[in-house]
């Protein structure tokens, strides 16, 4: 796992705990962070960036939020969750129904959506105190099935779907990809910042201690039950917030948007990006979104140029490739893209010397 380890460049030393805990430690990092924010702000105005590209970026931002939560639970705390999409659904339905039934605006729905998903997470996370690994994974799989069943049979509009208003600030509606882009990016940055703060706090260290050896962690005085539940709560809160954003962005909520397959996608994203890494989460989501787009272009071309392939083979290429990529990462680079990123940074700092 790559989380929690940071080696500052030679010559940079923190002389107080506060300085040591800073997210941005050097001027270079500060400049790069500001440059990245400016770039994010300018992207919609860059030539060649279409509404479709912006839709992809909005989807990426929402997926980053959802995967951050999952990485906190799975990557940092070591608790496997294969039902994240169900908690996204809870958030989306909560925000959507509050808007559809009561007319609540986006801003009033976002916290209740996160809390509703967190409550569901608490319920399904409770067995985590006694279960580990695959057994725990099964309870989260049960969450996917049970929550979907409840939505299908207890919420009459769930299968039909219903419309949701886009967010608004006064008369300004976030109802186009360009407008929503800024909102989604703001939320993604905020949630990244919160996650980054969390994992370097005492809570984050407790999560990592539990992940690395829960018996040793308990012997050190860490309340396993409390922290495991807290990890579930945070993970599903993130999912709920992502769900609320999704509902108000799509302006449409329906049950079929939250499947087990989506949960698998989220897991693949954090595995590819790097378990236990905030940067890795972002890399993983971007990598998978980009890979999907490339394959959606190349797949049909392959099919077209190879007439012996059966109808639809080009599209099936997507699942085969994504599955293959996940396996390759697990075998060749289990620490994910985040580790590669770290290696690049080290190389840059040490260049031209190899030591």
């Amino acid at each position, binding site marked *: 796992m790559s989380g929690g380890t940071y080696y500052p460049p030679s010559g940079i030393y923190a002389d107080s705990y506060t300085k040591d805990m800073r997210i941005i430690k050097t001027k270079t990092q500060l400049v790069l962070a500001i440059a990245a924010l400016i770039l994010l702000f300018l992207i919609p105005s860059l030539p060649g960036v279409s509404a479709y590209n912006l839709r992809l970026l909005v989807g990426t931002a929402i997926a980053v939020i959802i995967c951050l939560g999952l990485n906190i639970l799975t990557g940092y705390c070591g608790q496997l969750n294969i039902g994240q999409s169900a908690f996204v659904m809870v958030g989306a339905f909560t925000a959507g129904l509050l808007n559809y039934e009561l007319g609540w605006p986006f801003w009033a729905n976002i916290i209740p959506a996160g809390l509703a998903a967190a409550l569901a997470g608490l319920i399904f996370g409770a067995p985590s105190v006694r279960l580990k690994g695959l057994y725990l994974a099964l309870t989260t799989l049960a969450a996917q099935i049970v929550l979907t069943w409840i939505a*299908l049979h207890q919420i009459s509009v769930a299968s*039909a*779907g219903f419309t949701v208003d886009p967010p608004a600030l006064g008369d300004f509606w976030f109802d186009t990809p360009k407008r929503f882009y800024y909102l989604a990016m703001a939320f993604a940055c905020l949630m990244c910042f919160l996650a980054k703060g969390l994992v370097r706090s005492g809570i984050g260290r407790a999560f990592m201690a539990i992940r690395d050896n829960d018996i040793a962690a308990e012997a050190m005085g860490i309340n396993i039950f409390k922290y495991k539940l807290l990890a579930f709560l945070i993970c599903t809160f993130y999912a709920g917030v992502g769900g609320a954003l999704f509902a108000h962005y799509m302006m449409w909520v329906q049950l079929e948007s939250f499947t087990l397959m989506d949960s698998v996608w989220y897991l693949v994203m954090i595995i590819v990006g790097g378990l236990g890494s905030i940067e890795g989460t972002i890399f993983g989501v971007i990598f998978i979104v980009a890979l999907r787009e490339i394959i959606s272009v190349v797949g049909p071309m392959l099919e077209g140029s190879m007439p012996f392939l059966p*109808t639809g083979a080009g*599209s099936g290429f997507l699942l085969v490739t994504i599955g293959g990529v996940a396996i390759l990462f697990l075998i060749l680079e289990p620490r994910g893209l985040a580790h590669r990123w770290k290696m690049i940074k080290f190389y840059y700092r040490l260049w031209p010397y190899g030591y």
Partner: protein
Amino acid sequence: MRKKLWFLSLIGVLALFLAGPSGASGAEVVVGEVCALTGPTSLTHLLCMSGTKDYVEYINGQGGIKGAKGEVKIRYINYDSQYVAAKAKDGFTRLREQGMIVLTHCASAHSDALLAEHERYKIPLVTGSLGVSSMWSEWVYANYHPGIANMIRTWAVWVKSKWEKEGKPGGELILGAVESDEPWAPLALWGIDEFSKEQNLKIVTDKMPKGTTDATPQLTRLKQAGAREIFVLASAGGSVVVLKSAKSMGLNIPLTQCAASTLGDIIDLGGAELAVGYQGEYFYQPVAKNPQIPDSEGMKLAKMLWEKNRPREKMRDMYINGLLSGMIIVEGIKLALNEVPPDKLDGEALKKFGLDKIRNFDGMGLTVPISYIPGDLDSHIGQRHTQYWVVNKEGYLDPITDWLPSTTYRIKKK
């Protein structure tokens, strides 16, 4: 060596891009399709997509579409939605940026999720699958299906008419429905109690758990409740389970398949022997019909196109669905070209001067004539007729009714 490999790979990728479809010369209109090429419904969508694609390519091969104000060829582009509404919306945006003037697909969930986009960007939808909200829009043109909530309603009206003809045996009409645990199933039964009261009959429903391999308990309960006939609300896999259970318990109650699967698919999946006597609803001529029933001109064309493009694969019913969508789009463009020149042909013009002027269009005999009348939402449901077929001992389908009027119920908008 490694550099050489990289270079060769790069050349290969470039070659693939260059080998892609070249831009058509002359005027062209863009027809978009958002379909789930991957995901749970990929087989259905692939067939549907193939039907539309083959037809527009066939029309292009014939020289394109000619009208009084000019002629055009069609550029067909598609996008894999993976049966996810969010991806469908992404796809709509992408296709619109590529100049799409009309969209087609066969996913009822997409019809509803994309409705706001169709109305906002004035791009009509021609589809085989109406959702719930989309039944309220004049931008939606259905080619065959009367909407998910009308499957059981139309069937109930048909069974009731048979029962009445027989002198109302038993005095009370009780019907059964086996409902699979699939997301669309509650929609099919939406407001069914109210409907039953209106029709003065009783519909008993029983749910079949997901993944079950035995529907005997459900069928037994429906039999005990006195169901005269049973409607099967399940996709092909669930329906085969119902058929196997019915056979094992010697059930002698007629079973009818809903449009979530076709009898042809069930014969392929469960075998002809199992499916003998099974009834199903159709909205166009079935592919697996008795060979003694003559092919319509549309069916002959479908068979020719399928054989030409996929000689090693078996043609299935959903191909006809896609073909019908393609036919309606082409007909709409042809009519619009009588009023507007190709360079002015956008989605709005296609709707106003093309699709809204389609009258008595039967897809070369594949279905009942369709007319889309502006201001008449019922007409946007399409042909509004259902025909019931049954599997015979040879594994082919025989019609058991003429074309019956479908019900046109709409789930109320909030």
